[in-house]
Structures are given as structure tokens and as C-alpha cells.
């Protein structure tokens, strides 16, 4: 008894210290309590986000005052993520010993199963990082995705190219990049391109600057960018001199959101339809399943192409069409699940209790059919991203100048040999995303429902 008490005392003191630690450095408290892995998992991303925030501190704070929506969203995302990690770590630390002793719930088994699957964890991390990148685009992208500098000089620059862009300091202290307009003798006229670090956030008062060649060399040299300076075109430029890396970062939003939302729609709709077909059976089931067969008998790309090309391509239309043509698999799956669940005792019991039918379906049947739905959803995101990219490649995606991975690749087709980097890198981004989603999905499948393994 005494021993137990002392142990409790000790752990109490330890926890108090841990809570303090967690307050300042999320994760450290948990590490002190012995939860090394969890602590590190919290600390490392927190620290990276924190470093990122500090590095971009001025832009982040500025985002809240200027009217730029993209930057505001990015800054909000950053704040939420930081707060989230902090809060989660604190809660975890506070509830540390409460978790102990409880038995392995289904959820916990799944979690531990999933954790063992290293590729799946890696896939999940990549997927999460991709979304983070998409959100933080405005801070991460070294250039504005649509900003063209001096096209003639900056187009088709190979990866790692640094464009020698004269930087001129104005009287009010602003530094601006300029481009050469015309040369008369020793004098060169310059026109500002954009402000460093602001992309092309807004209009500039284009004061033509006339300087001598000599002066410019000097100015340019003193302000020559260092390696971490964002003026390097890491992945080269396209035919307009736009930075490929920045375009890929911004383009990720299109691909990721289309994949996510379209699958969301497809899964929701498919679940709904499948649930109705499975639960009511009979004539309803016949009609619905015949419809499913009909749509499945169609090469999906043909249908999607027809729909999107005939109506004008807009992002919501693409999402809607991909959603509307992707629900059949889910409907079948859910129907099958429901048919088997329908006969089980707990459903019969619910029936006997006089619960309403929607309630039975949504509260009692569907949760039990959730595992395979989640798994197919995750796996489906990958293929949907591929289809969306293919559409974009055919010119049926977002309109220029907005970047999407598919349309960057399409532009790369123009000059495949001369500028291989345009088509190559966005393709790698797609592969990375889809592989990550597939790994994640496979892992989920193995963890959630071993019966689904192939």
C-alpha cells in the first residue's frame, strides 16, 4: 500500500513537471514521462512549423493586415497547426496516466497495427506534408506562380538557375527587381518587375529608373542572392519565365483539393445510394444496381471528357463530374455490407425497438460498414488525382494562368527536349502524391480490416 502511494506521489510530481514542459515545448513533457516516440512525433513537426513561422515572421504577421486571402489562409493554417500541436500535447500530458490500464479498444488495435506498417506511416506523413505545403504555398513558394519576369531572359531556365536580375534600391528604401527596357549608350532604362518577397501582390508605381551600366553592376553585385535566397529557380522556369517549383506548389492545391473533395462527394453519394439499395432491397435495389451497372459499363474517361468539354471547364464542375462518376464502387460495397449486416441481431433488435429506418441505417448499420468505406476512399483519392491530372493535361482543367500539375506537364510538351524540367517535375509530384495515398490506403486497409487484404 505504502509503495503504491509513493509511486503515485512520484508520478504526480513527474507529471506536474511534464505539464510545464509541455506548456513550453509540446512533446517534451511526454518524453519526460517516458513516451519518447509520441513526444518526438509531436516535438519534431511542432519545432519545424515553429522554425518556419519564425523564418517567415514578417510575412506571416503581414498576412493578417493586408487583404491577400491566400496569405491569410496560409497564416491561419500555420496558427491552427501550431495551436493544435500545443493543445494536443498538453492534453496528452495531462491525461497521461488516465490512458493507462484501459484495454485495447478496436481503435487502438487499428492504431498499433497501422504504426507497425512503416511504408503506410511514411505515406501518411507525405500526404499530410503535401497538404501543409498546399496551405503554406504563399510562404513556401519562392516566386508568385504566375509572375513573369523579363520573359525573354528568364524563360526556359534549367533547374538551379539563378537569373541575374538587377536589384535596385529606391529612395524610400524598397528594393525592387527590375528589368532592362532599353539601352541608350551608357544609360539603361529599367522598369520594376515586382517587389522581392511579395510576389506580384499588387500594382507598383512603375517609375522608370535610368542608371548607368556601371552603377547597376555594382548594385546588382552587392545584392546578389545567396543560396538560401529565394531567387534561385530550383526546378527551372517555363516558357514565360515562371518558376516551376512555385507553380508546382500552387498547383498542388488544385490536385489535392480535387482529389479530396471529389472522392468525398463520391463516397458520400455512393454510401447513401448503396445504403438505400441494400436496406430496401427488391425493386429499389434492382433499379439502382442496374444504373450502377450502366455507368460502370462506360469508360470513365470518355464520360468525364464529354461532360467537362461540353460544359465549360471550371473547378467545381470537374469536382462534381469526378464525384458523380466515381460513386458506383462505393455504392456496391456499401450495399454488400448492408445486406450482410441487415440480418444481424443488433439490427433486428433496433428494428424491434421501433427505431426509424434512416436512424437504423445511419446510426447502426453504417458505422459498422465504415472501415471498408474509409479504405476505398483513401485508395480512390490517388486514382482521382490521376484522372484530374489527365483532364488538366488535355486542357480541360483550370484555366491559365492558374497552375495545376496536369497543365504544367501539358505546357512542357511544347519543348520536351529543350526544357525537360517543365514536364518532369510536376509528374514526379503526382507520382509522389499518388504513391503516398496508395501506401496510406493500403496501410489503413491492413490495419482496419485484415479481411480486405489481397
Amino acid at each position, binding site marked *: 500500500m505504502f509503495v503504491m502511494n509513493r509511486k503515485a506521489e512520484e508520478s504526480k510530481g513527474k507529471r506536474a513537471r511534464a505539464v510545464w514542459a509541455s506548456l513550453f515545448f509540446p512533446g517534451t513533457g511526454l518524453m519526460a514521462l517516458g513516451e519518447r516516440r509520441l513526444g518526438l512525433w509531436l516535438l519534431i513537426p511542432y519545432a519545424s512549423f515553429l522554425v518556419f513561422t519564425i523564418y517567415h515572421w514578417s510575412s506571416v504577421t503581414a498576412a493578417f493586415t493586408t*487583404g491577400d486571402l491566400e496569405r491569410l489562409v496560409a497564416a491561419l493554417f500555420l496558427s491552427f497547426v501550431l495551436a493544435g500541436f500545443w493543445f494536443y500535447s498538453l492534453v496528452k500530458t495531462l491525461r497521461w496516466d488516465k490512458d493507462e490500464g484501459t484495454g485495447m479498444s478496436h481503435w487502438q488495435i487499428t492504431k498499433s497495427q497501422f504504426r507497425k506498417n512503416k511504408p503506410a506511416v511514411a505515406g501518411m506523413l507525405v500526404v499530410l506534408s503535401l497538404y501543409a505545403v498546399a496551405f503554406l504555398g504563399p510562404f513556401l513558394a519562392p516566386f508568385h506562380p504566375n509572375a513573369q519576369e523579363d*520573359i*525573354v531572359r528568364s524563360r526556359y531556365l534549367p533547374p538551379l538557375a539563378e537569373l541575374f536580375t538587377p536589384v535596385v534600391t529606391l529612395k524610400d528604401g524598397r528594393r525592387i527587381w527590375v528589368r532592362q527596357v532599353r539601352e541608350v549608350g551608357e544609360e539603361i532604362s529599367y522598369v520594376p518587375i515586382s517587389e522581392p518577397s511579395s510576389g506580384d501582390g499588387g*500594382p507598383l508605381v512603375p517609375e522608370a529608373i535610368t542608371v548607368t551600366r556601371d552603377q547597376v553592376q555594382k548594385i546588382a553585385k552587392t545584392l546578389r542572392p545567396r543560396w538560401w535566397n529565394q531567387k534561385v529557380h530550383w526546378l527551372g522556369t517555363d516558357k514565360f519565365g515562371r518558376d516551376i517549383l512555385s507553380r508546382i506548389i500552387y498547383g498542388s492545391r488544385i490536385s489535392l483539393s480535387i482529389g479530396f473533395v471529389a472522392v468525398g462527394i463520391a463516397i458520400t453519394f455512393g454510401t447513401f445510394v448503396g445504403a438505400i439499395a441494400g436496406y430496401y432491397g427488391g425493386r429499389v435495389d434492382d433499379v439502382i444496381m442496374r444504373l450502377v451497372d450502366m455507368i460502370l459499363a462506360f469508360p470513365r474517361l470518355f464520360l468525364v471528357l464529354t461532360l467537362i468539354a461540353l460544359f465549360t471547364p471550371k473547378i467545381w464542375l470537374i469536382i462534381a463530374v469526378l464525384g458523380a462518376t466515381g460513386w458506383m464502387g462505393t455504392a456496391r460495397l456499401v450495399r454488400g455490407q448492408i445486406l450482410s449486416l441487415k440480418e444481424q441481431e443488433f439490427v433486428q433488435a433496433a428494428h424491434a425497438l421501433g427505431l426509424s429506418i434512416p436512424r437504423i441505417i445511419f446510426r447502426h448499420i453504417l458505422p459498422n460498414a465504415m472501415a471498408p468505406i474509409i479504405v476505398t476512399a483513401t485508395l480512390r483519392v490517388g486514382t482521382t488525382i490521376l484522372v484530374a491530372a489527365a483532364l488538366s493535361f488535355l486542357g480541360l482543367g483550370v*484555366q*491559365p*494562368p492558374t497552375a495545376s500539375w496536369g497543365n504544367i506537364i501539358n505546357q512542357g510538351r511544347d*519543348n520536351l527536349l529543350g526544357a525537360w524540367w517543365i514536364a518532369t517535375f510536376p509528374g514526379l509530384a503526382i507520382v509522389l502524391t499518388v504513391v503516398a495515398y496508395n501506401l496510406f490506403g493500403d496501410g489503413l486497409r491492413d490495419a482496419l480490416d485484415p479481411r480486405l487484404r489481397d
Partner: protein
Amino acid sequence: MRLTKGRENSRALLICVFLFLLPLACGEKKEQSADRSNPDDRYGGTLVVGGIGDVDALNPLVSSTRNASDVEGMLFLTLTEINPDLDSYSPSLAKSWEFSEDHLRLTFHLRNDVTWTDGVKTTAHDVKFSFEKQTDPLIAWSAIRWKQFIEDVEVVDDTTVTFVFKEVYPYQLMDAAVGYILPKHLLEDLPSEKWRTCDFNRQPVGNGPFKLKKWISQQTIELVANERYYAGRPCLDRIVFRIIPDQTSLLAQLKSGDVDLMESISPKDVASMSEDFRMGKSDVRIVRYPSRAYGYIGWNLRNPLFGSKKVRQALTMAIDRENLIEAVYFGLARLCHSPISPILWAYNPDMPDFPYDPRRAEQMLAEEGWIDRDRDGWLDKDGRRFEFTLKTNQGNRIREDITVIVQDQLAKLGIKVNPRLIEWTVFSDQTNRKEFEAIVAGWSVGLKVDLTTIWHSQSINDKFNYVSYSNPRVDALIEVAKREMDRSKAKLLWDEAQSLIVEDQPYTFLYIPEQVNGIHKRFRNVQMDTRGTFIHPEQWWVPKDERKY
């Protein structure tokens, strides 16, 4: 056992040696034949032309693709041919022609030795028949307006035909002669509504220097020399059109020699190809000449955004057109200032100019009330943001690129441009119905100096005045100028009309591109110029020792 093996080996060796010798032997033979070349050796050889798209029909009245007109030029004859000065004519099907006293009747005297490839003679009846079909609204020939002032065509005898005009104007000969003559005996029974789908479109019978031998859709069109051609058979045996729908691989085929001729090489490749030819690294000769096209941004004048002349001028000044031309054409285009092409006699070199000056442009916009009042980065006026959609047709990379560049250049002044690429049929439909704010488009100008169809206010509703440009002074000038028979007087009128249009800037005129074609150097006597890629292809020839096929 050993022996057999050995024998097999030696046989294999023999074959190797033989194969090795084969090209050598051929090479030797070639050199010998080169020594004995004589004028008769001009006959023979094949020209392979690579093209991006298939031909829709080989019937000049219904076809609408550019490739089709290239091929049709080899299959059919016109009454006269235009000369390189783009202003005078040489005989073709017609030996000679003369106007009546009142200048309302134009009589052509036809050759009597021209036959259709099926052996039937080409006569004045064919000319009359062709005119009737060209003006048949149900066939809807795309150049139907050229014939609008022709009252009637009268057949005098088999070789004499008279065009009767409604009025006198400078371009009567051009209007009468335009359009290919079609064989009456094959087409007269065809109802008008069947013209677009009839068999003739795929099995044309012509009277030109070449005749169609084979046409495999999406792949190849093969023409062979027409032995019955009135001027004697052409030098080349065959002209083969290959359809390669992808610009990149078409270029690769040209470089590798699989294709001998390619039209419209993309500007970015031209410099290196010329250089390679000069250095002897390539056999492809680059031929450049000014095209008849010009590109522009059209501002829809019905849209309040573009209602003010000053705003339009400011927009032009905000766009760095020289940089844009360098960017999309790599210098292979010149700045366009005027609705009349500099290749034509009526071009006015002395006109208002709106050079790139963003600062001035911004001032002018501010004077018109466009200021960024709400500090959101975009100009606004009366609570409306300066934002518009810039449409162009999908698939034309140059225009697509221009929308993107213009978008960025105007964004720097606080003008929000939303580029929008639209499929061609929809695009042309929308422009016709004036459903646009601004468009990037182009015109291929005729050789006739006439601003009516694009700039006359009467053309707003049913013709090509898409931007709804209306200036009474311009209308009046056009009306007079197009009937003025005296060149020097007409020139003054056209000059003024041009200046007025440019001052109004309903278009931001962008560029006049150069046509750049590549042709294998073994072809001799090749003529290409503003008139077209294939000028007298029957006279092109290849020295015997350089022939490939």
C-alpha cells in the same frame, strides 16, 4: 558436324559482305548518274509534305482546313493567277481577258487544251457552273462574299465566258477570278444540300498539275503527276501529304529527312535550324516570308470598360508588345500598327503610335477615373474593379501564350485579366455573337484592300466587326475608297481611314508574323512567298542523283 557449322558461318559471312557492299555499289552508281545529268532528269522524285491536321474534303467549295487549300491548289485551276507583286495577274485557265467599255463586263478567253483527269474538256460551262455553286447559299462557300457584285456569268462559247458586274470597282478581276473551277459534268446532278457529304469530296477530279491517288484519313494523301496537264507533266512524280498531328514529332521528321517540307515551323526552333543549315549540319533550308496575317487584342466596345478611347490607348501602352513579340515569336514577327498590312499598297507607314509606357498608361487610366481606391491591388472606378476576361481559342499556343503574358503585364498596372481558353468552334460562335469582353485573335488579310467587313459599322451585326467599331468618318471613307478607281486618290482615303482606326484603338494591334517553312535542300526551283507555300509545284524538281524515292 564441324564442317556444316563452318559452312553456315561462311554463308553468314557472305551475306554480311553482300549487305555491306550493297550501299557502296549504290553510292558508286549514283555518282556516275550525276555526271550524266540532263534536263530530262528533272522528271521524277517525290516530295513528302508533313502537316498537322487532316484535310476535311478536297472540294474547294466545302473544305475549310488550310491543308485542304494547299492540296486543292494542285488539283484544280483558277482562271488567273496572282503575281508576286500581289497586285497583277497572269494567265492560267484563262489565256486572256478584257473589260467592256463600261467596265461592267469582263470576258475571259479560256485555253482549249485543258482537260479534267477523266478526259473531259474544261469549258466555259464549267466556269459558269462553278460560279453558280460558289454563290449557292445552301453550299455556303466560305468566300461567297467575293462574288457579291457579280450579277451573272454568261457562256459565249466553249472557250469564252463573260462575267457581268453590278457595279464598277477596282477589284473586279480579282473577284471574278477567285475560286477554283469545278467539273460540271460530275457535279451538276448533285443537290446542294448533299455537297458537304458527297463522294467527290474524297475522290475529286480536277484539271491541275497533280491528281489524287490515295487518301487514308488521318494518315496520308498521295498525289501523282497529272500526265494530261496542259503545260506538260509536272517534274515531280508524286507529292505525298503526311498527317502528323504533333508539332514536335513533325519537326523531328523534318530534321531526320522523313518529311521534306513543313509549313509554319514554330518560331523557337527557327534560329537553331537556320544556323544548322548554314553550318552544313542540316539539309533543311528555312524559307521565310511575311505572312498575310496579323494578331490583335480586340476590345469589345460595347463593354463599358472599353468604351473610352483613352482607356484603350492606355491598355495598348501598358502592354510591352515588342517584348511580347520577342517572347512568343523570337523576333520572327514585326510589330503591327495598322489594319492594312504593310505588304499591300495601301499601307500607311505614318500613323499615331502607342509605344510601351506603363507610367503614361497609368496616368491615362487615372485621368479616366481608374484608381486603386480600396487598396486591394486592383484599379477601380464607381465601385467596379478593372477586371475582364480575355478569351482566345484553345490549341493556338501563340495566342494562349499572349493571354498569359498580357495577364501578367496588365496585372502590374492593377488590371485583373482572366485568360480563358475556348475550343475553336465555341470561340468563333461566341465572338460572332459578341459574347466576350476582350479577345486575342487574328486576321488573315485578303489581297484586296478593303476595310468594310471588319471596320464598317454596317458590319457590326452580320459581318466581322466583332468589336462593334463604329466611326461615321471611317464608314464614309471606306464607302468612297473602295469604289475609287484611281489608285493615288484611293491611297489618301485609305491612309486617313487607317489613321482614324488606329487613333481609336479598337484593337491593340500586336504583330505580323513571318511565315517560316522548311524544305529539304534537294528540291530545286522551289517558290514560296506571301501568295502561298506551293507556287507552281509542277515546276519544282529534284536532281536525279539526290532523289530519295
